[in-house]
């Protein structure tokens, strides 16, 4: 597998030459990589945004941390101390039993017969917590529930888990579509490279006759596959970024309540993932086609 740098460069040149010689099929391959990766990038962005919206919704509502009955001062302080240490907590307020009752009276009015003296004893003490934009709401809730003095945490779980479920379904659906499109992509790349290999079968036969190693024969086709995959992925990254900016600007005007993830914050990761998947498509496609041919020859 070890080749001299000069030979590798020669193989790269050959791979690039193959791509240009077979331009129509190469374009078709690049096109299918592009479509596959647009699907991958698109569903990733959709899932990311749904998760982000769920987090934002959570951040905008206050979390109520209900304490167990008859907790002592130390236990209350334990919660307070824990909240102080959380970077995602914007502010918090302790609500005593008395204050809790006053709030209820504020909501339902203080007409006679609704609330009676001593009702406050049935109410739990609680903390009301506001989160900042860095908060990982789910983690915070889990942390709070692990504290011995916390009875319950109320935070609009239903809405939150529904959005999360939709996001998961979108992502899984996207992956299924990706697998189907990915299969077609691999098929087309494999056929494109097989065409090159077939066109150069005489050369390959002579190479193997005069003692070229299998890797020496393989490398140009591997480069060809990698180039198809990487060019397709770079185009996909570019289109996604332009498309996303456009969508972001449009949505700000028509639905400003939607908080979209900024593209800059995900661009680097997403681009690398797309390049990685694109290169893998190309690599697998070329290895399959050359392997079949080397076996046959």
């Amino acid at each position: 597998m070890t080749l001299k740098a000069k030979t590798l460069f020669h193989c790269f040149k050959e791979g690039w030459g193959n791509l240009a010689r077979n331009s129509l099929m190469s374009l078709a391959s690049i096109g299918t990589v592009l479509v596959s990766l647009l699907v991958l990038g698109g569903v990733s962005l959709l899932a990311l945004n749904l998760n982000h919206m769920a987090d934002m919704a959570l951040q905008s509502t206050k979390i109520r941390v209900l304490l167990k009955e008859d907790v002592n001062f130390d236990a209350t302080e334990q919660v307070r101390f824990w909240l102080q240490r959380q970077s995602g907590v914007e502010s918090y307020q302790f609500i005593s039993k008395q204050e809790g009752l006053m709030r209820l009276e504020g909501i339902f009015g203080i007409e006679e017969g609704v609330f009676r003296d001593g009702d406050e004893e049935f109410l739990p003490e609680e903390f009301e917590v506001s989160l900042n934009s860095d908060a990982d709401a789910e983690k915070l809730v889990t942390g709070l529930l692990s504290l011995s003095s916390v009875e319950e945490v109320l935070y609009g779980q239903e809405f939150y888990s529904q959005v999360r479920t939709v996001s998961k379904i979108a992502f899984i659906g996207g992956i299924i579509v990706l697998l189907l499109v990915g299969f077609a992509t691999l098929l087309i790349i494999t056929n494109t490279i097989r065409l090159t290999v077939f066109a150069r079968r005489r050369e390959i036969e002579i190479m193997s006759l005069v003692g070229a190693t299998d890797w020496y024969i393989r490398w140009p086709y591997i480069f060809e596959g990698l180039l198809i995959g990487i060019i397709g992925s770079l185009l996909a990254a570019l289109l996604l970024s332009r498309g996303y900016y456009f969508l972001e600007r449009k949505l700000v005007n028509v639905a400003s309540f939607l908080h979209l993830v900024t593209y800059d914050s995900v661009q680097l990761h997403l681009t690398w993932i797309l390049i990685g998947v694109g290169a893998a498509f190309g690599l697998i496609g070329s290895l399959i086609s050359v392997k079949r041919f080397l076996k046959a020859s």
Partner: protein
Amino acid sequence: MNAMLRMRSVSKVYHNGTVALSSINLTVDKGELVFIVGPSGAGKSTLFKLVNRKELPSSGEVWVGRKSVPDLKKGEVPIFRRNVGMIYQDFKLLSNKTTFENIAFALEVVEASRREVLRQVPAVLELVGLRDKGKAYPHELSGGEQQRVSLARAIVNRPIILMADEPTGNLDPDTSWGIMDLLVEINRRGTTVLMATHNKDIVNRMRRRVIAMEHGKIIRDEQRGAYDIES
């Protein structure tokens, strides 16, 4: 003398059931020039394929020098093939490469340095008498010249054994003798040469060892032999 090629009880049956070789026993010594004769389908080409490991024997042993050819590991095969030169009736040249490039190709694929290429290629071109044809493409050369290029490519890696499969099959008698003279010269320089041929004139006039094959078997092995049995 040392044995360059040894075959012991070699048989080859292809997947479709065709028996190409049957119980072949053969020893060729270092420095010999051997003609292999026989009708088409006698097993001559299969014998060559077993020697350069294009095919594996169904049974038996094939040794080139001290190497057991069927036991070579996959990674050892390319290195081994650099020691076994091959030429064919149809030359197997690359039409988009010049004479020089066709020969250099054999050095480049074994990762020889540019210095080596520039030293070796003109030397073999000189040997095969094509010094001034380096820039010509195969279609600009005659059949005999194309076979000389093919021969030059086969010997540029200095193989210890050279196998020629019907090298004069597409050539007129005079050109054929030109190729034969070259093979004799290469043999004189120490390379063992095996040549499968239908050319009676050459075999009868050369009077070298002749191995006659039929239906996958050796039916005659004669020193200073002729193409047909002499009564």
